[in-house]
């Protein structure tokens, strides 16, 4: 046999896999509070740090900068200010489905009124012409809500 370096050209094979790995991610009591309020009352909530007084949403247990446990849930607004966004118009696989994610769509980071950090979500595509950093947006809720972030259908620009 010839040495490897003298190999003749031949097909270069690939192995293809489409394994789906299921996950059962716990949402936890803090973020769960947001989803339960959203589902049952169309209310949005954040959690306030007792030390620096910042309000975070979705709520979580620990304020990182203060390394302090938070325990004060506060209601925040349905409206907020668009801080960053992207009009997504390139093809890619959605790891949630294994299929191409429908495009175009818009997602952005919204500073909800009463919160100090931003919340990421979908922006209604029909608003594409009205988008700008600093635009005011408002949550639109699904009629049937299941206790997940997409119980907010999307955010819409408010004039």
């Amino acid at each position, binding site marked *: 046999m010839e*040495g*490897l370096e003298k190999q003749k050209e031949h097909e270069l*094979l690939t192995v293809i896999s489409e*394994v789906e790995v299921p996950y059962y991610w716990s949402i936890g009591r803090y973020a*769960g509070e947001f989803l339960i309020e959203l589902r049952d009352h169309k209310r949005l909530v954040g959690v306030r740090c007792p030390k620096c007084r910042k309000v975070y949403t979705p709520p979580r247990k620990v304020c990182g900068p203060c390394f302090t446990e938070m325990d004060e849930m506060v209601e925040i607004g349905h409206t907020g200010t668009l801080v960053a966004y992207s009009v997504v118009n390139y093809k890619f696989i959605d790891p949630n*489905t294994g299929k191409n994610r429908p495009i175009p769509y818009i997602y952005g980071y919204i500073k909800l009124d009463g919160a100090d950090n931003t919340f990421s979500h979908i922006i209604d595509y029909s608003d594409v012409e009205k988008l700008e950093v600093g635009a005011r947006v408002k949550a639109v809720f699904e009629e049937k809500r299941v206790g997940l972030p997409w119980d907010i259908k999307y955010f819409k620009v408010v004039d």
Partner: protein
Amino acid sequence: MAKSSSSNVFHGTEELVYSGKISVPYTWSVGETGSRFFLEIRDNKKIFGTHCPMCNRTFVPPRKVCPRCFEKGMEWRELGDEGILMTYTIPHYHEDIHPMNDLFAFGIIKLDGADTGFTHLLGEFQRGELRTGLRVRAVFRDQRKGNILDIKYFKPIKQQN
């Protein structure tokens, strides 16, 4: 709800879970060396390993470079399609990732001419028949595609006469 005290922050005991998945397709490069190995199986039903002239070991699956001494001048060696069963296990549960449904086993086989074991499947055996040291032979698939499952499994070699 403007505020709640720490004692009653949470609504009862509802513990939400999101059941999702990760589903990203992958296309792994087999590489020149591995492709040649699979092509020999696919086209000629022959199993090859690569031999390191430095440490004198023959590896299967083949290595482009010797993993022990980083020797680059590996040489192809044709191996037997028979070998000795070094270890085995019969699974008693079924997973979708299992390529066989009927009675089957996983095994490591030292193919004739190889210095390493080759991990694969075992089929066409009776319960109780498998043992360490058993001679087995590769059964090739009729429709071969250039991957590890072109060998359907290894089966025990029946004692002649």
